[in-house]
């Protein structure tokens, strides 16, 4: 189980199912919008480690949340075992149904 935390202003946490709720940081905004997490790539010679995360946006939730986009904020993919990936929110793409976040180390 993985969830996303963006340490913006305010911090926000995105999860897929209610199973994640006990693990989330108390007192921070929570959104059940996480759809999928892409491949996390790391390479000593290739591009900087990065990952794409897709959120649901059917009702424009992300469009509203990211009206002031928290790009440059620290973004963490977390699991019950601890951090899976820590980076910086590099880019946000929105369309009618989804929101794609690009996170780079």
């Amino acid at each position: 189980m993985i969830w996303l935390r963006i340490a913006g202003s305010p911090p926000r946490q995105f999860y897929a199912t209610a199973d994640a709720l006990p693990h989330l940081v108390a007192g921070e905004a929570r959104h059940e919008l996480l759809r999928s997490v892409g491949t996390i790539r790391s390479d000593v010679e290739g591009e900087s480690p990065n990952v794409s995360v897709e959120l649901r946006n059917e009702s424009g939730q992300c469009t509203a949340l990211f009206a002031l986009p928290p790009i440059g904020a620290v973004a963490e993919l977390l699991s019950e075992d601890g951090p899976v990936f820590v980076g910086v929110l590099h880019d946000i793409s929105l369309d009618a149904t989804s929101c794609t976040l690009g996170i780079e180390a």
Partner: protein
Amino acid sequence: MIPLTAPLPLRQTTAWGGYRDARPIPHRYGQCSGELLQYNDSRTEFCWADHPVQGIDAVIVNGQPAGEWEHRTVTDVTGRALALVVFGQPQDEGVSIVARGRGKLHPATGALMTNPADVVWDVLANIAVRGTPASELAEFRAACARANLEVGGSIEGADSVQAVVRDICSSIGATFCATAQGLCRLWPGGQDSAPRATIRDGIAGATVTLDDLANDFTVQYGYEDGSPRGSVQIDAPDYVALHGRRPAVIEAPWVTSARVAYDVGQRLLRQRARPQWRITVQTQRPVRVGEVVQIDHPAVPIVGAYPVLSRAYEPSTGVSTLGLTAPAGEIPVVRLVRQSSAYDPLQYTGATAGTSGTDRVITLTNADGSPVADARVTVRELGIAAQTDAAGRVVFPADLMPAGAYILDVVTTAGDVLEIPILIV
């Protein structure tokens, strides 16, 4: 936290009250040289680094040693400490002014930063302000110290954070990956930890190509003004005989000594003179880049433990596809072919060596080119000592000093204690 792909945020000369040209203000480490940037309007003050430095040893104006100058640490209008060279007379417009010296001091220990791990940490933690703790690079630091690896160089441009760090690492035969265990590791070579996983089955593949083979390396080092001041050529004669001579040039801009260049070249040659199997395997184990896996798979022609160089992790399945490189064949014997230096009478405090008859003749010079006369010189590895003459020359029997890398411990008449690496060809 800035991403690794972002330009390293160097300050610009425009931060000062007045400036000649808008340029990034350099950061300098270890033994290095670099152009001075005009600091005051009257062209008597020039900036060498955007921080205090251990010392400036020589100043060269249009290729000639400058007289009447001094090194000062001053505070600029923003409150930042700078390393300045202050001349007694204004310098002409259009002249080339270069200083050689010893760069940044470690903020905790006050020592000159020459361990590659310290330099990488300073770039990540203090220039890029990524919050990287020094402890994260502790293993790399220890490995570099064990191998006596030291670096020197300058950061002068707007390269990305990752490009700067990889430039430092590639100069000494090391890798950097932000998600790797310990961030950096020596590779090839370096000390491997116990394997995190053993791969015996599952999806796996291996490829090998002639394009990866190189058995004759020229390592270029001691860069000044973008050009190497020295080079070391080494080869693997057995593999040259087997595959034909396959040369490669290794640019090592952060290496300042022939000894380190030789060490780096040796490690790279031992790997690349042999065919390299590029292996991909899959595992459900949480293995990180830099960690070691044991390969014992029927589809892979190599059995052994190797560090992970790449990883693609699928969170939906928990499966990681790992990339490794494993050399095939015997570790080659490495031969030192030659060492050469660019024509330049002015060098760092250093040594050049030659052979005359049955003697090794070593000449020691100061940073301004003057001889280090009447100094006691001990060859550390051999425990033999002698004194330099008025020309800075000292002689050791060749049969006691075979070809290889040595460290000279030098005590001058002024009481200075120097440690000078040297390569005997």
